């Protein structure tokens, strides 16, 4: 009963904050722009958020976060649309939807696939947000007692998980994470005020710009890769409302997978490093195994859309749990969200919820509103997105470059940031050629400063005694988990390669 009443009062706070005209508008704009960027092939939620992050500097705090969350939901959703219609994953996270979504399009059932994706993702999001509402207050109470030692070890766990659970070699992932940490040390040392790696360049005394690095590694590198290569851009089908309605058997076949997928996604999303994308592959594999007709998978089975999509979106919701309560992001997108908080002058951590309840609960209520906008924008207006998909790339990519340049320049009105963008664009393209993952680098860069700060504070308090990291139980558990994650991923990688 107590839980229910606190639930209600929290919702009331959030309702009050989210239902202002300006915040509803920011939410709508965020979802709309997210869909717009996400639906374009090759541009995923990470690029969408880093493209739109500079714009949010000019907004009030809650408006900025509501808009960014809307961008995240929208871009994730738009990527799936692109996967189903063109057979090209909009970004790695929605690679699974291609498997059965594109065959359905080729059978003329693309509309049904899009509709079911919409239902599944709404259901998944709902599960994720409810989990977030239930567990975030509980975890906050727990986290308020954490000290520097605990934070340090938890960050290490997050970094380790994010850099090893990727697609490629875990050693390269960890190496990229270390590069990110080193890049994070550029600028004034937080403890002593000593300049590090500034090479006498005054612009480097504040460190490298996060937006420049993120946009360079992802957006610019992607444009360099995509410009000049061939692309599929033809959608010939009609998408009226009639063509989208699933049959009774479609519904019957989708409900079970949706329930299972959302449960799986909610669990994996809350863990550091395992984004919904990784979990949705697992959800797909499970559905295929328990299905009575596994031979239909890959040829347009609707279960292959319902389950991964519900899984992915449930994971989006629960990924906010560690991000908002501990201030420890599970993946690079969450790290960018935290960066937005910091830019707005709010220190991430358990104090976000206790000190700014209107911000926290307003954000959560806006998740609901954003998901409703998503349904409204995508079922009746699907024709608009399809037309957008068919814009030829030569007309598109100069605009992408322009917006990254203006966005980066607008952060400090400094040309230096554009040069940083340029350099990291080339670095990001080089990393693509060498198959190095950019995500751990970015996460390392963002967590570098807080990690070093907590690390040195922990050792200062213990008078240089490293054993504090093992004698504190939560820290020891986190370190054990981090070691376990590393060992497990190394083992899995070696086994995969020796096959």
């Amino acid at each position, binding site marked *: 009963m107590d839980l229910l009443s606190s639930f209600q009062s929290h919702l009331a706070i959030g309702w009050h904050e989210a239902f202002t005209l300006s915040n509803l508008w920011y939410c709508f704009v965020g979802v709309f722009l997210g869909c717009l960027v996400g639906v374009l092939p090759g541009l995923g939620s990470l690029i969408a958020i880093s493209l739109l992050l500079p714009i949010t500097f000019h907004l009030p705090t809650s408006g900025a976060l509501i808009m960014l969350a809307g961008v995240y939901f929208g871009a994730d959703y738009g990527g799936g649309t692109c996967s189903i219609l063109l057979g090209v994953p909009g970004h790695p996270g929605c690679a699974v939807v291609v498997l059965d979504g594109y065959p359905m399009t080729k059978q003329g059932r693309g509309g049904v696939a899009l509709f079911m994706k919409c239902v599944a993702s709404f259901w998944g999001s709902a599960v994720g947000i409810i989990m977030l509402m239930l567990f975030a207050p509980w975890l906050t109470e727990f986290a308020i007692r954490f000290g520097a030692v605990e934070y340090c070890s938890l960050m290490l766990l997050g970094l380790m998980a994010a850099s090893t659970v990727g697609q490629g070699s875990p050693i390269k992932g960890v190496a990229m994470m*270390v590069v990110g940490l080193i890049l994070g040390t550029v600028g004034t040392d937080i403890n002593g005020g000593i300049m590090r790696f500034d090479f006498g360049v005054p612009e480097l005394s504040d460190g490298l710009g996060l937006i420049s690095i993120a946009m360079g590694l992802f957006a610019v590198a992607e444009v360099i890769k995509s410009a000049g290569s061939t692309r599929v851009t033809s959608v010939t089908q009609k998408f009226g409302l009639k063509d989208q309605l699933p049959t009774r058997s479609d519904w019957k076949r989708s409900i079970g997978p949706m329930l299972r997928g959302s449960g799986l996604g909610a669990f994996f999303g809350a863990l550091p490093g395992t984004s919904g994308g990784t979990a949705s592959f697992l959800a797909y594999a499970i559905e295929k195994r328990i299905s009575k007709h596994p031979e239909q998978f890959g040829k347009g089975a609707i279960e292959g859309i319902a389950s991964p999509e519900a899984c992915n979106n449930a994971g989006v919701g629960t990924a906010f749990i560690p991000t908002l309560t501990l201030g420890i992001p599970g993946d690079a997108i969450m790290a960018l969200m935290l960066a937005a908080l910091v830019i707005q002058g709010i220190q991430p951590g358990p104090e976000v919820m206790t000190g700014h309840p209107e911000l926290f609960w307003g954000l959560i209520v806006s998740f609901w509103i954003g998901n409703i906008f998503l349904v409204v924008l995508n079922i009746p207006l699907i024709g608009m997105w399809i037309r957008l998909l068919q814009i030829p790339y030569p007309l598109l990519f100069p605009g992408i470059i322009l917006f990254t340049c203006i966005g980066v320049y607008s952060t400090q009105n400094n040309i230096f940031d554009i040069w940083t963008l340029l350099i990291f664009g080339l670095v990001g393209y080089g990393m693509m050629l060498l198959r190095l993952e950019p995500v751990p680098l970015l996460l390392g860069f963002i967590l570098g400063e807080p990690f070093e700060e907590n690390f040195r504070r922990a050792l200062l308090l213990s008078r240089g005694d490293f054993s504090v990291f093992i004698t504190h139980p939560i820290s020891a558990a986190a370190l054990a988990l981090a070691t376990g994650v590393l060992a497990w991923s190394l083992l899995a990688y070696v086994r995969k390669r020796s096959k």
Partner: protein
Amino acid sequence: MGAGFFPVTLGWLLVALGLIVLLLAFRNTVQVLTPPPFALRAIVAVPCAILVFSLVVDRFGLVPATFALTLVAVLAEKPFKLRRTLMLAASLSLISWLIFIVGLNMTLAAFIF
């Protein structure tokens, strides 16, 4: 523990990881990876477009910088169509002027004379 401790430790860690990657690369000579797409035009044109933008924007303003960026960027793709490019540059100028200068009130001049 001073300011140098953290970077130096990370540096040694990176050296160790680099050596491991190097040694593993020697061992697995059998594995052949398909080369990723390598388009020289795009590799040159896209960075040049960014560079040109950075040189023009604070001397001549946003609109000339947009035209310069667009004109260089389109060289990344083969058939160069002047009319289409100019129309694209004009509409991009209009959009970015509306969003960033009118909408967001950024301190950015459209033209500097």
